[in-house]
């Protein structure tokens, strides 16, 4: 009996890549970032975890899953919890600030 055919699995949300928005300009200093949003004209200061996420994406697109794997080895959250939820919340924050966008 042949296995039923299935359609190719769509990437889950966690596997879709994020990247820094094309109109953003930034500088990274130690564990902080300052970012200019060319669309809104706003200038943002990120520190600690948000700066780490942005800094990671500034080096190339990454998925939520990829960020989570990197964070598990590089970051120790003060809450002691696993970084997955914090990654999701931070990506949402950066998206709403128009500092990151989905990679093509």
């Amino acid at each position, binding site marked *: 009996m042949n296995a039923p055919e299935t359609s190719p699995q769509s990437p889950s949300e966690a596997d879709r890549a994020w990247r820094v928005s094309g109109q953003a*300009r930034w*500088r990274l*200093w130690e564990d*902080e*970032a*300052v970012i*200019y949003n*060319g669309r809104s*004209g706003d*200038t*943002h*200061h*990120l*520190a600690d975890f948000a700066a780490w996420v942005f800094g990671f994406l500034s080096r190339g697109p990454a998925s939520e899953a990829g960020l989570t794997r990197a964070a598990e080895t590089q970051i120790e959250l003060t809450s002691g919890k696993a970084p997955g939820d914090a990654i999701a919340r931070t990506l949402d924050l950066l998206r709403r600030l128009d500092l990151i966008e989905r990679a093509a």
Partner: protein
Amino acid sequence: MREQTIFLRLGPFTAALTTPFDKVVEELRRLYPANFFQHQSDFADFHVQLLPGKGMRRHLRPQARFLIDGQEHFKPLPADQALPLVEWGLNYAIAGLAHNYLIVHAAAVEKNGRVAILPGAPGAGKSTLAAGLIHRGWRLLSDELALIRRHDGKVVPLARPVNLKNQSIDLMRRFAPSAVFSTPAHDTVKGTVALMRAPEASLARIDESAPPGWIVFPQWRQGAPARLDNFSRPAGLVEIAHNSMNYSLHGEAGFELLAGIFAKSGCYRFTYGDLNEAASAMNALAAA
């Protein structure tokens, strides 16, 4: 009252001031060096007028009005506040028109070829700190508006009189007994204000711009020992952007300009309660 027009140099700008207020012109001649005045000029960056009040009020309570290119941007003030009105009006003209510079609401003083930019809200003590430092080896570039040149990030001098308020006036009379002050104006929106002429050494170098070396956010606090604390560069950049008159106009270029300055400058919060201690701390910073 006979109207006269004087052409006054304000750093890189020339202002044509037309006024019948003879006493204001006399005070300006005490506060600015003779070579900053011209009897006539083919060009002025700002055309301003200081005029008496209008209508019946001018007989009851004399007033002064300040106009820029014929437009009145301020409410009239009592005539005995005419001199500070001129200085505030000229600040407004520069801040509103000189967009070839990134303009920060900050004092700027120079030593050893580098500029300390001192941003701060009114009352933080930046003008008092600048007034003290320029009598202890620093050169005045500005007490109110730091003009940062876009193409090279250098600060351009204005070297205009320093605005002092309330207890800072007497403090500076004691700290710099040889300094020249205007007649104080009382009951202004800022309290009692007086203008202090820039030292001759600052005025003589009006054409010398200089690169930033430090961004120092001052805070005067009574009795506090002088203390410089490292301050986050990103936080400092955002704060200086908020203290800028025209950062938003410069867009991405403004961000890149400030980022370049912060990359090469120390960034500090500075608490002080005594000018001598403050000068020692800032001199040590400049010597490092």
